[in-house]
């Protein structure tokens, strides 16, 4: 392919990334800023997958069987635990304005400058080869596509050009703002975009290659042969049998790397604007790893079949499309590779340059700075220092690639980097979960871990290339057998990575714990360890807590801040903070301790915690704050919050009580209304007979000459109406008994049929007078109930029926059945029936409510209301079916199987 065209594609793709990075902050999706979408964030976490993943997995699959999977298994297994760890880490870093791994470790262990510098240097040593691997990938993939030779002599100018392009790219992206704690939203969007591109390309290429390889194989090979070929591919490649130790250690350090690599820290913590994002990345990231690995084996097999044992197995993905004569696909793969490489280089370099400036250069300058003018010059140069950091980092990577990489094996550079980064694990995890871990422990652990790492992984490759004497490999350091770099203390049988991981982490962890236990912490360290380990306890009160003792003046503090953020911004920040915490913001005033702490945190975000501490010390006449004092302050704030919560709880309780009272009052009022309704009903019922009595009494009095028959008729009416009153009074009293719950049942066991027969016989005279036909069906149900009450109900129902059926043609039937565990007894008549609007009302004692002007049918009185009470008390019910003009059927129901012991 024409190098010019490819260069244009390369530059065009980078331009596209520029556009995304610069425009993305303005983009919206469903009303949300694209750069703060959880999905965009989660995709950017996939910056974990570099060119090493993109090309290297295939190389590894083609030479070392499926061991490469451990690199992705580790982060996947670690994801749930990592989620908890990252949540805490993000909280700590956001509160303390920590912006890099070095700053994190330095800050946790008493804002120690030496520790930050050492972490930075170690990171550089560990990561620069990894960066150079990306340069190599871009440069070599370019060469392959253009058909250029690998065996160039002298300087690889292509790689140099690429390095400078990347320097420019990174400077534009990452070091435009001084406040590192501010997210680079555009960067996040570009990285997420590149993640999509590399996944898309890998899957596309995987599908196409698998399809083509399969169809060309099927033509001249039987299925058996294919299967046989596949088996031999594995057999041939699987020179080392599966080794659990290798898998375990590679998975473990990969898991650590997915949390601790500077670029992962940058994305997980610095670029992360919300802890909530983590709950998305916790599953999207492992899922991404799974997807990007799906086609590794099929493609590696296709490479084995079609490319043979090539020296360029790493570029199988690029070579196969060329072999199949699909240049467009090769260009896609090339772009996927650039995506993987550039996103890694940019993010990693930003992270390293932050460490370079904040943990290495600025602390060195700050230590010398004893006046504001010197600090001011640091402020003016912060951006420059960071840009220089970018330049220095990428150039180092280039130089490494150019001058060192030829002597060392590149195959496992990624894993060697992982092991180096894993050396920070004890200090970081210990720092977040173990209060007694201290700076001596961290320092000695990291140092010894690195020494072991260097000795077991770097020394052998130097010796193999004759930079060091080969004697070290064969006979051990100083000819001591137990100091052989590949089998330290005689440990054999593991791969070099597992071997190195085991020893370095063992020494590292051991030193960290033992030294921490043996030595003591400074007050500042104690305070920080309390804060880090119990961050969720303190995070609410942290900002408003006083962490300073000593005297400072607002103008000094403001001037200090202005050096780094400018005058206007400094004034704004300080006045906003004083407003938020209602503290004085007067030119001549002493700065509130909280404000000093705030300024220190803000500066931490720009120059790192150690430098920030040094600079603030220049304006504050400070006395050391003891951990007891600090904890006292924090606890006081916490108590205030607890008190506040208690008050809130009390208020809620009061409100609940209030609504309870209101509810009770409402119920009482309702009861009162019901009582009123009842009284109205009763008085109304009483008025009717009294009216008749009075009317007839007056008539009898005023008409002494009345016929004797009329006289007798009217007196008789008076007597009957008196009886009606008596009955009504008895019913009211009866009902009241049920209402108040004083009515008890006297349960006995008897046959319902017998009761019906007794009632009908008792009414025989009435029935005969009206010539009504009463049919009682044959049945027998033993029930447990109050016999007198059931008798009362039946008398009421049957006598009502007799009253309302027409004389001589009246028909009444009584029948019983069982349905749904209930015994039903139906009293049906062929009377005039009851209008449906009264069907519910008829059992209600309050039928005469306030605004009611319609009257329920005569004769029912309170009798049916009492029947209903009786049935309910038995656990049964009473209901009515009636069609006006055709008759009514009252049904009483009783539960069966009631035990006698109920009483």
């Amino acid at each position: 392919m024409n190098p010019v065209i490819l260069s244009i594609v390369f530059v065009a793709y980078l331009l596209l990334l520029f556009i995304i990075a610069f425009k993305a902050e303005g983009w919206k999706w469903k009303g949300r800023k694209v750069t703060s979408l959880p999905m965009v964030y989660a995709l950017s976490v996939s910056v974990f997958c570099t060119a090493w993943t993109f090309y290297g997995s295939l190389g590894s699959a083609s030479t070392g069987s499926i061991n490469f999977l451990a690199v992705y298994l580790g982060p996947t297994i670690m994801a749930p635990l990592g989620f908890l760890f990252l949540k805490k880490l993000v909280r700590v870093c956001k509160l303390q304005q920590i912006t890099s791994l070095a700053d994190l470790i330095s800050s946790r262990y008493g804002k120690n400058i030496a520790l930050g510098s050492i972490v930075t240097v170690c990171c550089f040593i560990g990561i620069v080869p990894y960066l150079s691997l990306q340069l190599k990938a871009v440069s070599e993939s370019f060469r392959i596509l253009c058909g250029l030779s690998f065996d160039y002599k002298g300087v690889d100018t292509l790689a140099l050009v690429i390095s400078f392009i990347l320097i420019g790219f990174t400077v534009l992206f990452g070091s435009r703002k001084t406040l590192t704690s501010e997210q680079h939203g555009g960067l996040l969007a570009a990285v997420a975009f590149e993640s999509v591109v590399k996944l898309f390309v890998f899957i596309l290429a995987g599908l196409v290659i698998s399809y083509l390889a399969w169809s060309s194989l099927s033509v001249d090979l039987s299925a058996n042969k294919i299967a046989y070929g596949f088996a031999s591919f594995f057999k041939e490649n699987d020179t080392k049998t599966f080794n659990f130790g290798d898998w375990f250690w590679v998975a473990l350090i990969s898991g650590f790397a997915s949390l601790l690599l500077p670029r992962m820290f940058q994305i997980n913590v610095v670029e992360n604007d919300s802890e909530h994002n983590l709950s998305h990345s916790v599953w999207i990231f492992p899922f991404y790893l799974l997807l990007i690995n799906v086609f590794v084996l099929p493609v590696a097999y296709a490479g084995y079949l079609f490319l043979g044992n090539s020296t360029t197995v790493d570029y199988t993905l690029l070579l196969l499309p060329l072999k199949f004569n699909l240049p467009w696909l090769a260009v896609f793969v090339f772009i996927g590779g650039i995506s993987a490489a550039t996103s890694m280089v940019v993010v990693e370099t930003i992270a390293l340059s932050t460490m370079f400036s904040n943990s290495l250069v600025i602390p060195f300058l700050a230590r010398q700075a004893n006046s504001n003018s010197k600090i001011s010059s640091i402020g003016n140069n912060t951006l420059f220092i960071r840009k220089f950091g970018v330049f220095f980092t990428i150039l180092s990577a280039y130089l490494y690639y150019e001058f060192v990489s030829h002597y060392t094996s590149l195959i496992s550079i990624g894993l060697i980097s992982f092991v180096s980064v894993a050396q920070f694990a004890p200090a970081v995890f210990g720092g977040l979960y173990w209060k007694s871990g201290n700076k001596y422990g961290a320092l000695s652990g990291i140092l010894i871990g690195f020494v072991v790492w260097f000795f077991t992984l770097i020394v052998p490759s130097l010796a193999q290339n004759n930079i060091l004497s080969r004697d070290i490999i064969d006979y051990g350091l100083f000819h001591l057998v137990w100091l052989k770099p590949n089998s330290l203390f005689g440990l054999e049988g593991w791969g070099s990575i597992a071997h190195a991981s085991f020893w370095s982490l063992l020494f590292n962890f051991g030193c960290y714990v033992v030294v921490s236990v043996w030595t003591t912490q400074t007050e500042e360290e104690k305070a920080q360890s309390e804060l880090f380990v119990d961050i969720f306890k303190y995070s609410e009160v942290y900002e408003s807590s006083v962490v300073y003792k000593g005297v400072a003046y607002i103008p000094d503090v403001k001037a200090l801040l202005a050096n780094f953020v400018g005058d206007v911004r400094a004034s704004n920040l300080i006045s906003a903070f004083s407003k938020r915490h209602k503290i004085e913001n007067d030119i001549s005033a002493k700065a509130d301790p909280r404000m000093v702490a705030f300024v220190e945190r803000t500066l931490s975000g720009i120059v790192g915690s150690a430098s920030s501490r040094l600079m603030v010390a220049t304006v504050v006449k400070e006395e050391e704050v003891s951990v007891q004092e600090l904890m006292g302050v924090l606890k006081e704030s916490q108590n205030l919050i607890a008190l506040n919560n208690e008050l809130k709880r009390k208020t809620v309780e009061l409100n609940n009580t209030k609504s309870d009272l209101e509810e009770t009052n409402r119920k009482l009022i309702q009861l009162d209304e019901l009582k009123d309704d009842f009284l109205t009903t009763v008085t109304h019922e009483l008025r009717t007979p009294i009216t008749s009595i009075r009317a007839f009494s007056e008539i009898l009095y005023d008409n002494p000459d009345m016929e004797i028959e009329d006289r007798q008729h009217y007196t008789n009416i008076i007597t009957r109406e008196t009886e009606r009153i008596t009955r009504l009074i008895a019913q009211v009293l009866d009902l009241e008994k049920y209402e108040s719950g004083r009515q008890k049942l006297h349960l006995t066991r008897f046959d319902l049929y017998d009761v019906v027969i007794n009632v009908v016989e008792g009414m025989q005279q009435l029935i005969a007078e009206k010539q009504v036909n009463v049919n009682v069906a044959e049945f027998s149900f033993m029930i447990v109930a109050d016999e007198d009450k059931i008798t009362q109900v039946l008398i009421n129902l049957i006598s009502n029926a007799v009253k309302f059926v027409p004389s001589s043609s009246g028909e009444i039937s009584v029948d019983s059945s069982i349905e749904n565990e209930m015994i039903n007894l139906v009293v049906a008549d062929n009377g005039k029936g009851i209008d449906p609007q009264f069907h519910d009302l008829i059992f209600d004692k309050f039928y005469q409510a306030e605004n009611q002007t319609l009257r329920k049918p005569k004769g029912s009185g309170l009798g049916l209301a009492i029947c209903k009470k009786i049935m309910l008390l038995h656990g049964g019910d009473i209901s009515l079916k009636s069609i006006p003009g055709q008759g009514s059927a009252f049904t009483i129901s009783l539960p069966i199987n009631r035990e006698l012991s109920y009483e």
Partner: protein
Amino acid sequence: MNKILIADDEPNILLSLEFLMRKSGYDVFIARNGSEAMEIINRDKPQLVVLDIMMPDIDGYQICSYIKSNSELADCKVVFLSAKAKESDIKKGLEIGADAYLTKPFSTRVLMQKIVELLK
């Protein structure tokens, strides 16, 4: 001879009122519920109606309103005779145009006096 309608759902009250009216020489019509009452009012156009309020189908208020809004029945007087004895009930009855409102139990003498007055 003046025609009087008595509408009530209580047979004993009807009986006593019928006796009283006949004795005073009126032509008496009886209704045991609201719809019977409406029928008689429309057919016989009585000069006076003694109305109970609470009846099973059509209540007394509705019947009174009907009478008072019908020009053909302009001469018809209405006397409520009800157990509803609250002031609000009485007020409502008079507002919709009743000529008198007596509560149960009532004095036969006061009632007859009222009827004589109204039919004068």
